[in-house]
């Protein structure tokens, strides 16, 4: 007897998981073998945009409809639904940014065994085999990917179902987990990836960057949950779910995007995973090795199969392909890339003022101070505690005066309280999620009994957005932004601390769209922040729950981590995994949320966080205070230095986010993204790249005396950004470290702009001059960019108000030229200093400006480090110029 997914879910809810063998799971228990599905070739229809074909399950005669699309940008979409479902099955809305544009498929050949279709010019074919049904994507003679080659396509078709008495009993034990009225509706499909040994992605899991095989264990689970004190190196579900997997080999990078918002499991197996290095060697020597292959299998509890196969072939291509489907990273206000100071909770206005003052006294920059749930009047969001925060505008004005900002929390659970305006309006408008009997669904959360607005309803979202208007959200001001927490959603008394699966969002059960809820909350909130400014200002919204497409709305963080060294380490693969699937704006709570960090851990976490995209310190209510200056002057200085390094590098961060926004390239990258042929990098997750030019290997070991960083790139060089020492690429470099060390290297061949004048907030640095760090390649070449705009509005997009320049060093000349001729922006910032690493001593340096003027520049040359420093070119950052070295 096997269990359906629903039964398994019930079982999990009852916490009897231990005693349940996974193999008993009906759909997962399917063994690879002959698929019962057969393609009915006579039903084949080919139009300009797609191919349709019916499939029949020879066991039960239920027919499915297959749709195949060739999408622009080297992607294939495979959609499978019941041909005639009892009622429509859920198809995920609002995640794709548009109906993906198609390209015509052409039929190359057809016989009774199947059809061959052309996927375009790259000699790529799609082969549809009829019996058993199977799809293969080929390039030349090579199979890139096969679907249903293991025969695991499964579709629990909808049926009229009578509830058994046993199920009724289960429903009493675990209300909300009962089968939907149309019975179990799970779907499944397998993918085989020949030549692939490394797969990545499918966040959110607290696990290594390279995904592990799941044979004999639990599958990776995607189901948004509020997990208390999560465990590490574990495939268990966390707060967010992005059903996108990347495969990578030295030859090719591909992606599989499984567009389904129901509870989802991913099984991974590999024919090489079990082999020892010796075994692999033996295979190699004997020449008997089978091709390495990774097999993946996706299962979802409901919905349809809608899968996008991104064919790469490079990592960059996959990022472009995925972002063409779900959009790119929201371009955050510059200040959101600076340092955030958070705590559950800053007690009152005086506390906020004192912490603000503390940063100035200790000369540590910060941009945002955050208020957690205690700032509200009894956990009624959009309100203020009248005793602790009687004058929120005064407080916010105090921050404006320091050119700083605030974030307040707005969670999606609404206190059921007839004297609370927000609740009354949602109730009267019928905007709450309903229970299966049609009443408002209620659950326990921070405020006690709470309702959950139905964010899947566009009218609800519009109303929610309107609540952020300055006249609606009393006490709010332009420098106040928003944090959406608990949006899995968290329901304290719900099964697995979340919403009952039979709760209703309009006609759909939560079961169908569970993983979308958090995305919608952030979407509506971000829209609110845009609207309140009349569409002028970029929003900043942090979310804990997320789905594919959430990158369009702001930042995510890795939830309620713990002040332990292992949690510091896991922050790297967790954010790398998110970056691979579109979410660049990722961070972990600096210091760790639960428990109290040792001083050393806190310092190391600041040093690591300073080089991760979202840089926010946060702490649990029950932990002792940990503002940076509370650990003695030495540690204050260490933290100050880490934060200052962040601020100095903000121009580069901003430029990376511009690119993430523009083209979907991740900000924080695994090494293999830039060195796709270097197999040594494929499993690395203790170091990472920022863009392509900075390599960071933070110290994450307690009492660390040194780290071994891998500097990639044969024939390349890397420069230590602190000492300017040059190191060769393609080597493991041991770097002795002290407590002040943050090992960071700049790639030879790159130019990185910084602002050396670190001030108390990023806004204060807006007009400051730039210092250019030019790191020469062995061929004495370097290239970089400079991106500048107003830092906070959409004018860069709507009115092309920005500066984007190409900086390049070649033939002993460094020049700046315009990369965006259609754009226009005026900056008072100028070029303060140019530091050329790996340089030789010139006899003179001449600055040439467009007006034809030539000025000799003073310079300094450090022969021991081969560092040439050009003194004060003084030229405006937005104009053409050239510096010639002679």
């Amino acid at each position, binding site marked *: 007897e096997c269990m359906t997914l629903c039964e398994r879910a019930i079982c999990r809810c009852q916490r009897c998981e231990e005693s349940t063998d996974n193999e008993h799971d009906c759909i997962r228990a399917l063994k690879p073998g002959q698929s019962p599905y057969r393609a009915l070739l006579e039903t084949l229809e080919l139009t300009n945009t797609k191919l349709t074909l019916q499939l029949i399950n020879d066991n039960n005669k239920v027919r499915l409809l297959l749709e195949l699309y060739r999408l622009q940008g080297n992607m294939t979409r495979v959609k499978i639904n019941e041909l005639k479902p009892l009622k429509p099955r859920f198809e995920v809305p609002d995640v794709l940014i548009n109906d993906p544009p198609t390209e015509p498929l052409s039929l190359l050949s057809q016989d009774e065994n199947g059809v061959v279709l052309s996927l375009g010019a790259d000699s790529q074919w799609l082969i549809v085999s009829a019996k058993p049904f199977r799809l293969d994507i080929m390039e030349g003679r090579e199979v890139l990917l096969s679907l249903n080659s293991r025969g695991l396509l499964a579709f629990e078709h909808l049926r009229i179902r009578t509830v058994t008495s046993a199920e009724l009993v289960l429903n009493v034990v675990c209300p909300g987990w009962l089968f939907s009225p149309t019975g179990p509706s799970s779907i499944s499909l397998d993918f085989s990836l020949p030549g692939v040994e490394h797969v990545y992605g499918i966040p959110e899991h607290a696990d290594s960057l390279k995904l592990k095989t799941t044979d004999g264990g639990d599958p990776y689970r995607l189901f948004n949950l509020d997990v208390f004190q999560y465990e590490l190196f574990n495939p268990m579900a966390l707060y967010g779910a992005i059903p996108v997997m990347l495969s990578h080999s030295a030859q090719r990078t591909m992606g599989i995007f499984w567009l389904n918002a129901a509870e989802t499991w991913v099984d991974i197996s590999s024919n090489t995973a079990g082999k020892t290095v010796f075994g692999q060697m033996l295979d190699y020597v004997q020449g008997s090795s089978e091709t390495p292959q990774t097999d993946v299998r996706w299962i979802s509890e409901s919905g349809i199969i809608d899968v996008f196969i991104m064919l790469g072939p490079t990592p960059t291509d996959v990022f472009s392909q995925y972002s063409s489907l779900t959009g790119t990273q929201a371009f955050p206000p510059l200040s959101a890339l600076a340092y955030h100071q958070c705590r559950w909770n800053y*007690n009152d206005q*005086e*506390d906020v003022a004192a912490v603000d003052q503390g940063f100035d006294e200790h*000369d540590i920059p910060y941009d945002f101070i955050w208020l957690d749930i205690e700032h509200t009047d009894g956990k009624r969001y959009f309100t203020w505690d009248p*005793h602790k925060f009687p004058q929120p505008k005064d407080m916010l004005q105090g921050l404006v*005066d*320091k*050119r700083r900002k605030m974030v307040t929390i707005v969670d999606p659970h609404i206190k059921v309280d007839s004297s609370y305006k927000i609740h009354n309006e949602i109730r009267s408008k019928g905007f709450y999620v309903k229970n299966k009997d049609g009443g408002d669904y209620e659950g326990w959360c921070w405020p006690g009994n709470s309702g959950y607005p139905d964010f899947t309803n566009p009218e609800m979202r519009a109303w929610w957005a309107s609540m952020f208007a300055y006249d609606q959200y009393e006490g709010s001001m332009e420098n106040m932004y928003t944090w959406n927490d608990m949006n899995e959603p968290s329901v304290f008394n719900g099964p697995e601390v979340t919403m009952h699966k039979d709760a209703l969002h309009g006609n759909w059960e939560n079961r169908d769209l569970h993983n979308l809820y958090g995305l919608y909350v952030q979407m509506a909130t971000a829209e609110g922040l845009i609207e309140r400014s009349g569409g002028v200002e970029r929003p900043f919204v942090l979310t804990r729950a997320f789905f594919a497409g959430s990158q369009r709305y702001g930042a995510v963080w890795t939830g309620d981590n713990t002040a332990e060294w292992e949690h510091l380490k896991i922050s790297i693969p967790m954010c790398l995994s998110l970056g691979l699937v579109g979410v660049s704006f990722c961070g972990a709570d600096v210091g760790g949320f639960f428990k109290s960090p040792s001083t050393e851990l806190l310092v190391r976490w600041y040093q690591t966080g300073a080089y991760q995209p979202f840089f926010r310190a946060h702490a649990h*209510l*029950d*932990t*002792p*205070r940990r503002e940076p200056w509370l650990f003695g002057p030495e540690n204050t200085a260490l933290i100050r230095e880490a934060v*200052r390094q962040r601020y100095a590098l903000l121009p580069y961060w901003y430029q990376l986010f511009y690119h993430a926004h523009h083209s979907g390239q991740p900000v924080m990258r695994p090494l293999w993204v830039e060195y796709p042929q270097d197999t040594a990098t494929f499993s690395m997750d203790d170091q990472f790249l920022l863009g392509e030019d900075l390599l960071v290997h933070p110290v994450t070991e307690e009492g660390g005396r040194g780290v071994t960083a891998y500097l990639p790139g044969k024939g390349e060089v890397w420069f230590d950004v602190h000492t300017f020492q040059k190191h060769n690429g393609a080597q493991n470099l041991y770097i002795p470290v002290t407590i002040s060390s943050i090992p960071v290297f700049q790639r030879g061949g790159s130019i990185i702009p910084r602002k*050396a*004048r*670190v*001030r*108390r907030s990023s*806004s*204060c*640095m807006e*007009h*400051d001059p730039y210092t250019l760090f030019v790191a020469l390649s062995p061929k004495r070449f370097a290239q970089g960019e400079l991106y500048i705009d107003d830092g906070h509005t959409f004018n860069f997009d709507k009115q092309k108000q920005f500066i984007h320049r190409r900086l390049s060093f070649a033939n002993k000349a460094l020049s700046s030229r315009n990369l965006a001729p259609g754009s226009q922006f005026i900056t008072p910032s*100028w070029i*303060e*200093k140019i530091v050329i690493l790996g340089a030789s001593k010139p006899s003179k340096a001449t600055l040439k400006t467009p007006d034809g003027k030539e000025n000799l520049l003073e310079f300094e040359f450090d022969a021991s480090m081969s560092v040439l420093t050009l*003194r*004060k070119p*003084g030229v405006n950052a937005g104009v053409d110029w050239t510096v010639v070295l002679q």
Partner: protein
Amino acid sequence: MSCALLLLLTSLALVMGTGTAVEIQRPRGVPQSKRQFYEENKPFTCLDGSSTIPFDQVNDDYCDCRDGSDEPGTAACPNGSFHCTNAGFRPAFIPSSRINDGICDCCDTTDEYNSGATCQNTCREMGRKERESLQIMAEITKEGFLLKQQLIHEAKRGQEDKQGKLTELQGSKKGLEGKMEALRTVKKTAEDPEKEAKERHLKSWEEQKELIRMEKDKTRMAEAFLELDDDADGYVSVAELQSHLELDPDSDGSLTETETQGLLGGAGKVDTSTFETVWSGIKDKYLSEVSTYVMKTYVIQSFPYPKGSPGSGRSNEVSIIRFENANVCTLLSASQSLICGPEFIWICRNLEKEIGFDFGPSAEFAYLYSQCYELSTSEYIYRLCPFNRVSQKPKFGGSETNLGLWGQWAGPEENLYSVMKYDHGQGCWQGPNRSTTVKLTCGKETVVTSTSEPSRCEYLMEFTTPAVCQEPASLDEVLHGHTEL
């Protein structure tokens, strides 16, 4: 490229008190004390000596010196500092990073000369306010310091008193202990003869008891003989004895002739003198025909406790000793309870504790001992009992929570007595034990002025007391001491 224009600054400073305006020229951001190092048209040497640059590179918005000294008036150096004269108020140094950052830091507005920020010169106003508050503070300090002198004086007296009292108590304790020792000796001397007498008395009593017992046995034997000699022929025969079944040696229920003869020592009958031997063999089992009840009573009565006296001539002696002994005991126990009683111990211990407390260098905090001070907030009543404990009680019902017990002085090294630490209060769920830091500031009155909980279960209390008031500097010094002219 407009920065070189900003090289020099003409600043006006009012010489305090005279009102005469003097013009001073010096590079922007340099304090008067360092003016000499910035000589116009002469090469400038970084103040750390690291390098020498042409003077036109001073304040040219480019950092040349490692110590930041070439850019006192711009934000170019990461480690520089800018001097605001703040005429009318206090001069100050600010980090260079705050120059032209759009935020007014110097009250004379000199830090924002090129940022577009509109700053108001608030120095005079601030100076006025500060003078006012300094004046108030100075008055408070002055009065507070006087109060403190008084406190020190009282504390000294109190300390002496207490020391005196303790010494006195300790003296009297010693005296009492001496007395007790003497009494113990007396008691012992008195008790020794009593013990002997008691032993003698017991011995003779035992002898007498034995005599009585023997006499009684004899009587009983005679009575038994009479009882048994049914025919009154002066002999107890086998037949006469056989009726006493209780004497059956094998307890089989019948007393045979042979068995009876055995009891009579093999004879057919015995006379009174021979019966003596027979009696010793049967007396334990023999049941009187008259009444077993009488027998039992008799047995019980044969062991009276030798209380009182059987009428010996020594009884008077014993009672005298006892009388004297009772007196000694009363004295002893009275002294004992004085020395070892809870009250005495409590007083002594408290005095010792109080004398042992660190009440500050001149015991100026001694007056706080055994006092309590309360502060009422919207939700709680906070209670500080210095050198004892801090607690919190909900205003509207609920039990008191211990926020910490006296721990130690916890101020910084140079000002140890400015902070009190109370710890080991009630435990917090998933957290530490509650603790409270009390910050002391100078005030005329002794009051708790505020409480807060900056971190979960870590409380902060502000407390004013004259005991921390420092000797006031003269007001002029306070107001003008650091004013640069």
